[in-house]
């Protein structure tokens, strides 16, 4: 039976996040503008030294091309560093479990995956990742990929506040994102997780001798510090292959709720940061409302589908299902709690998993897909809000044309150049997902990967969902996976790396380009015909636009996959 009391803690966590978000968002807004912020006295001298080491003048404000170049060069350096560590991890020190080096294609996939905030893993961490490779390689990407996400969205937003064509200094933004936001919060979060019982040690494994015989390896490591930034930076690559379903990384319901809060905090704060940066705090309202509407409806639907269970299973004589649908799920957590964790993880593009997504009910799978199609409710750190802002520009543009006015937003004209980039951005998303799916079928690769049957390469709806999920998750930089699929192959590693890199950096470049176009414009005064964006009407309009555009782009493939399974 469903116990309504189990909803209380979910609501509590949401309320706490929503109460903290405005304050935290305002702090972020101050950190990324030139206004005094909490901690200036402590951080300014440290950052001054860091900027000197990095060799940048913090007063130097970059234009579009230079900002993009700095972003890409820095990301390339992270990719190369991780790639080298992964390939050579067998010969590098700090490999107590004697892990072999990765093949070059798997190493490239892994490096791209963590640098793009995706954290989709084609390896099993327990047997294919060394301790040194994890913390010296992948863990730095957990920080830096979240930092680049924040940097890009603040540069995008600066377009509305400047007229000199500049976007800010990438290195300053990245350093501040780490020093003033991610690192202090990750330390606090990790302390709480340590107190909640997560392992935190440099011992990588312990051999146990269970009473029923055999040998069991208990894999350990600095799990608390890893998990904290994994959730906070919406990364989602777990210390363990089973991610949050391995109870070492998630020992109690309390730790599950806390990790959910960590995932949501920054994404829910970004609309308020935006309001602070453009000096119109109320402009945060339509965004936070849109995010909440879509997120809560998704959570409700996910819970509903998991509650009604799996019709295809039919009657199992002598068996009762009580509470949570258990197949592919851990016993820890009630239906609302596990659903809240999983929906937050997918909708905030974290990708951490508390359940086997391939085993949950088809309806819940469909809800999961939709979160990655919108990418923006609330989406990952930085990029999620950036995409939402692009949706909003499209809404403003269409709305302006409908009433026959020059479309404008926050005093800046929304012209055809901005719309061209916005359209590119929105269309690139289905393109990076659907093209590789088609290639897999045309090239006959569905046979080894999914067990498709010759001669028609026939796959069933579930196998199609698995393949679609692979590329959707990579294209949205989500990182959750639906199995089983044999994806540690040359094709899936290289295609996956390409999908993740394009799915990450093309939208980022588009955001910077749009920001740069705005940044070159003189503000125009508001008139009576200006579309009121801080209104109930605009919120509904934006929500509907988001749902319809995301839905239309993907409806055909959803019909082939999970939709055809709903109802058995």
């Amino acid at each position: 039976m469903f116990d309504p009391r189990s909803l209380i803690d979910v609501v509590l966590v949401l309320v706490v996040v929503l109460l903290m978000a405005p304050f935290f968002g305002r702090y972020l807004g101050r950190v990324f503008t030139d206004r005094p912020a909490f901690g200036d006295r402590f951080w300014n001298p440290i950052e001054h030294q860091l900027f000197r080491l990095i060799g940048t003048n913090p007063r130097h404000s970059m234009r579009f091309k230079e900002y993009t170049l700095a972003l890409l060069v820095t990301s390339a350096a992270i990719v190369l560093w991780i790639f080298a560590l992964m390939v050579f991890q067998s010969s590098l020190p700090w490999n107590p479990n004697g892990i072999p080096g990765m093949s070059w294609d798997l190493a490239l996939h892994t490096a791209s995956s963590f640098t793009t905030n995706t954290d989709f893993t084609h390896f099993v961490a327990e047997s294919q990742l060394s301790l040194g490779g994890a913390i010296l390689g992948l863990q730095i990407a957990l920080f830096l990929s979240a930092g680049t996400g924040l940097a890009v969205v603040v540069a995008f937003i600066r377009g509305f506040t400047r007229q000199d064509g500049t976007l800010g200094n990438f290195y300053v933004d990245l350093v501040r994102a780490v020093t003033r936001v991610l690192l202090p919060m990750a330390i606090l979060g990790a302390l709480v997780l340590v107190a909640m019982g997560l392992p935190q040690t440099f011992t990588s494994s312990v051999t146990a001798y269970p009473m029923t015989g055999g040998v069991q390896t208990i894999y350990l490591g600095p799990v608390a510090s890893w998990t904290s930034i994994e959730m906070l930076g919406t990364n989602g690559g777990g210390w363990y292959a089973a991610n949050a379903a391995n109870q070492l990384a998630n020992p109690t319901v309390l730790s599950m709720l806390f990790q959910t809060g960590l995932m949501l905090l920054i994404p829910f704060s970004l609309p308020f940061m935006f309001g602070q940066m453009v000096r119109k705090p109320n402009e945060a309202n339509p965004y936070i409302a849109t995010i909440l509407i879509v997120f809560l409806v998704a959570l409700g639907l996910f819970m509903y589908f998991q509650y009604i269970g799996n019709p295809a299973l039919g009657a199992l004589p002598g068996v009762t299902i009580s509470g949570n649908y258990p197949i592919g799920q851990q016993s820890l957590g009630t239906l609302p709690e596990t659903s809240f964790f999983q929906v937050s993880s997918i909708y905030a593009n974290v990708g951490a998993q508390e359940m086997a997504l391939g085993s949950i009910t088809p309806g819940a799978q469909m809800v999961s897909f939709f979160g990655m199609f919108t990418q923006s409710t609330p989406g990952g750190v930085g990029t999620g809000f950036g995409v939402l802002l692009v949706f909003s520009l499209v809404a403003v543009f269409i709305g302006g044309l409908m009433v026959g006015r020059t479309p404008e937003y926050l005093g800046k004209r929304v012209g055809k150049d901005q719309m061209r980039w916005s359209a590119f951005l929105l269309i690139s998303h289905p393109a990076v997902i659907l093209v590789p799916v088609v290639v897999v079928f045309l090239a006959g690769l569905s046979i080894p990967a999914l067990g498709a049957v010759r001669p028609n390469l026939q796959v069933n709806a579930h196998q199609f969902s698995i393949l679609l999920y692979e590329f959707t998750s990579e294209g949205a930089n989500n990182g959750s996976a639906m199995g089983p699929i044999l994806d540690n192959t040359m094709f899936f590693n290289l295609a996956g790396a390409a999908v993740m890199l394009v799915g990450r950096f093309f939208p980022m470049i588009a955001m910077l380009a749009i920001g740069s176009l705005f940044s070159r414009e003189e503000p125009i005064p508001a008139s009576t015909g200006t579309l009121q964006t801080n209104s109930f009407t605009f919120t509904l309009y934006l929500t509907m636009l988001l749902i319809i555009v995301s839905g239309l782009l993907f409806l055909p493939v959803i019909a082939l996959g999970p939709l055809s399974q709903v109802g058995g």
Partner: protein
Amino acid sequence: MSGALGPPARSSEPASPSRGASASPADAPQRMRSHVRAAVVIVVLAVVVVGLGYPALLTGVADLISPGTAGGSLLHATNGTVVGSSLVGQNFSRPYLFWDRPSTNDYSTTLGYETPPGPTDPALRALLNETIAYMKQYGNLTVNASIPLVLVSPSYSGFDPYLTPEAVLVQVPRVANATGESIASVTAFVNSYITPPLFGFIGPAYVNVVNLDYALVAWTGVGP
């Protein structure tokens, strides 16, 4: 309105060295070489600070505040041997132990996770029916009791240490029979291992089967 949207106010504070963005010598773009240098320095700094320093700091603190759980919640036998972790399930398929959930990976921690068949895959029904049949034949469960689905269904990790109280209590007759204890005393023993929802509403009631079974063997003396 335009006032609010002007360039960011830079005069609201006495400019500290790292703030402000419009000094004239800073207008020239950095060269490619200086971008490469910056990227390399960022990676090196990140390796030292967030790669090494951050987990080292936390490990130091964890050793002070919670050495037991920070070390992996390990369970030791009386002679000091590590027998497992409270947070990692094991194969307990013996008549005198409470069984945990089935695992298609044989509870392997090295394989990391398992992928149960999809919701509409006929293999799922077959797998469940097989486990249910085994449970009915060898489980020696409470007569006429319904089997909770969680007891016969695979988890995601493949080594779920937790179970619902009903799924443990339904196994009491078998354990009582195999250990020679009375049903009432085994039931009371299980009841003492049920963790109720925190504050009455956070989480379900659950039993840690690993802790339960190791305590059970110590209590009954019936073991391997």
